[in-house]
């Protein structure tokens, strides 16, 4: 069992490596797409909300692009030898945007009361937690029931945002009027929201780290059409295009413009992995040979190069290569139509039409589905694309009404947080599109997943996950397509935009504009 040393970083030290002197002031215009449904991060955790509210709210920890934890609201922390007690020491003198002091009570309220009720993903991790206690105003202790390997990864702002107890305690969280004017501890304060047009944040002058943030104000711009967003960047209306906000074909064009920079970094914590759910319960996709044939039939390099403009990486299995405990030592599925045909012949595929449900997230995904359909039809599989909008997609996948369905999910840095949920039999539950939707059942592997999650020694965990990956790839429960890379495009005079594993979600704190 490895004891993680208590680590303390000074903010100054973290920033010391910068080559250039930061300049204060200025305004940044960032695209947000789609318009977030709300900004109260404790209630809503979808992508756009995290992007905007990540500047308003904060978590106890931040994570580097290597997924190492670093101080957030917690200045320092210790983990006990047995991996059951996590003690956090909070930053002194932190205040909420309305001037109230931020204390350990707020942490207890947020994690134990508020988020337990509202945050489904965190709730799964909190199941391991026995108690959360405020020792004093600046010390909080989380005590676990049993060791949980990835627990140190759950303190990110989108996973465990701190919400103000003095506003929410005793109220109906969902309908609290203050949801419209969110109060956090973050570097920027909510100023205005012109629905359908923009969200305006202004600098938090009382931020607890001197000198931060550098920027005076940030506008999150709502521009519904992808092509218009590209134009907005070209004409200088906006300065930053977060990953995924323009279609891939525009990425190459925009990054070639003068004074435009891009980075693929800033998604390490999420490590989005795209795959196709293959319905393991019925139809041709219930046959492992058919699923393998699909893997051989698909030309994933072509899609990466053409549809994703060369961004991304071909995955080898369920764990993304940037996620902890990844292993490359697994069976490989190169593009091999002949092998696919042979497998289909062997299983006696009768030409039954299989439905393919694309992800309704824009043209890229549509083209991707068309390419897959073409690949499959070339080896003799009859594919019909099912059309559905976001609601329809959610409904069909969560009700298992599909044969093949595109999806992509975040891994949150650890297989136990973002991978196993899609493959273990206990997560076969109708009504959710994030669990074991494909209906894959393998009791032996289930046991191995469970064991790996509670190990505290990293090497031990690595060995367990190596084995799991090797076995599961043989079965092809789903067709892994691509480790997605969403490049962030920005003007080169904007510096230090992406410094953490969640990129610009919490990166604006350190960003500055070279005048």
């Amino acid at each position: 069992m490895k004891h993680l040393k208590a680590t303390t970083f000074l903010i100054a030290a973290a920033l010391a490596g910068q080559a250039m002197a930061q300049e204060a002031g200025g305004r940044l215009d960032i695209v947000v797409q789609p318009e977030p449904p709300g900004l109260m991060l404790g209630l809503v955790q979808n992508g756009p909300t995290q992007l905007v509210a990540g500047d308003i709210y904060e978590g106890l920890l931040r994570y580097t692009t290597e997924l190492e934890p670093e101080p957030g609201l917690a200045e320092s922390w210790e983990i006990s030898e047995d991996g059951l007690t996590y003690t956090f020491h909070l930053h002194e003198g932190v205040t909420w945007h309305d001037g109230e002091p931020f204390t350990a009570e707020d942490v207890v309220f947020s994690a134990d009361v508020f988020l337990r009720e509202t945050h489904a993903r965190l709730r799964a991790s909190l199941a391991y937690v026995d108690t959360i206690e405020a020792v004093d105003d600046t010390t909080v202790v989380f005590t676990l029931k049993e060791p949980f390997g990835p627990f140190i990864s759950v303190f990110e702002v989108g996973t465990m945002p701190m919400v103000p107890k003095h506003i929410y305690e005793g109220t109906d969280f969902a309908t609290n009027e203050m949801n419209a004017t969110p109060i956090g501890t973050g570097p920027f304060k909510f100023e205005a929201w012109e629905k359908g047009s923009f969200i305006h944040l202004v600098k938090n002058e009382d931020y607890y780290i001197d000198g931060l943030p550098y920027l005076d104000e940030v506008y999150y711009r709502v521009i519904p059409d992808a092509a218009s967003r590209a134009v907005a960047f070209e004409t200088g209306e906006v300065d930053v295009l977060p990953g995924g906000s323009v279609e891939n074909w525009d990425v190459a064009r925009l990054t070639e413009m003068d004074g435009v920079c891009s980075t693929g970094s800033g998604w390490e914590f999420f490590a989005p992995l795209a795959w196709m759910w293959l319905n393991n319960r019925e139809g041709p996709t219930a046959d492992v040979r058919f699923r393998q044939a699909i893997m051989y039939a698909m030309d994933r390099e072509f899609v990466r190069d053409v549809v994703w403009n060369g961004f991304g990486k071909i995955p080898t299995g369920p764990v993304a290569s940037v996620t902890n405990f990844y292993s490359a030592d697994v069976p490989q599925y190169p593009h091999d139509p002949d092998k696919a045909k042979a497998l289909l012949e062997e299983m006696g595929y009768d030409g039954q039409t299989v439905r393919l449900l694309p992800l309704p997230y824009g043209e890229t995904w549509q083209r991707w589905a068309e390419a897959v359909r073409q690949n499959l039809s070339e080896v003799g599989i009859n594919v019909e694309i099912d059309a559905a909008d976001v609601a329809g997609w959610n409904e069909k996948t969560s009700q298992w009404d599909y044969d093949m369905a595109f999806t992509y999910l975040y891994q949150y840095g650890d297989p136990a947080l973002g991978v196993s949920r899609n493959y273990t039999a206990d997560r076969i539950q109708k009504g959710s599109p994030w669990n074991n939707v494909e209906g894959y059942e393998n009791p032996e592997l289930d046991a191995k997943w469970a064991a790996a999650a509670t190990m505290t020694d990293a090497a031990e965990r690595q060995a367990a996950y190596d084995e799991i990956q090797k076995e599961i790839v043989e079965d092809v429960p789903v067709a892994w397509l691509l480790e997605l890379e969403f490049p962030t495009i920005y003007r080169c005079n904007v510096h230090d935009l992406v410094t953490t594993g969640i990129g610009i979600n919490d990166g604006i704190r350190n960003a500055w504009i070279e005048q």
Partner: protein
Amino acid sequence: MIRRFASNKGAVIGVLILLAVIALAVSADLLFPRGPWAMVQRPFLVPFSTDGLPLGTDTLGRDVAAGLVHGARVSLLVGLVSTLVALMIGVPLGAVAGFYGGWADEGAMRFTEFFQTIPNFALAIVLVAILEPTLGSITLAIAIVSWPPVARLVRAEVMAVKRRDYVDAARLAGLSKFRILTGEVLPNTVSPIIVMASLMVATAILLESSLSFLGLGDPNAMSWGYMIGAARTVIRSAWWLSFFPGVAILLTVLALNLIGEGLSDALNPHLSRKGTA
């Protein structure tokens, strides 16, 4: 009447364009046997740069020309079928309203007004979203938002025709109301309906392409609107992907309008009386 139509230059051009489009649509499988979805070459090939791919390739390396020709089928089909369905709703409703009058008329017209009050395009969007985009649902949605003008036109025409003396004569001949409506009245309202139908096909093609543009096209059917919708995100780097289908829509809609106007002029007795003493 045909002579008068043929002497209309615009109408003749319209017919020629439309015939060309129909010919392409019919021979699509002969011209491009691999279908519109086959990825035949590198993506983003500029038009006229590669032999055998006169209109270039799209984002996935598919032949744009093949898409256009196969798309002609789908666009025309949606246009025609949705118009037919709209006629099947609008004609009987308008006919009954205009012919029987009274409560039938009141009811039918309230119903029609009701559909005209709901914002059309929004209704089409909602219908397609609910039924999920397939050729069938798109066609149906277009038909549902396009029938009210048909009903109104037919009602007005029927009301005009039923006042003609020969309709009274038919009543005096002891013909049943239904026979009078179908045998005497409706056949004499055909001309304006044909004119309107030709314009409706054009509108339906535009409507289909608008729905596709918003992402509500059938992903299994390559239509022109689908091509533009798919290409709009690359409009800066690959203008031809939306340009050619755009031109195809424009030409076809133009042709149908020219034909509609030609028909209208040729069938309009008002104009035909000119030129005699």
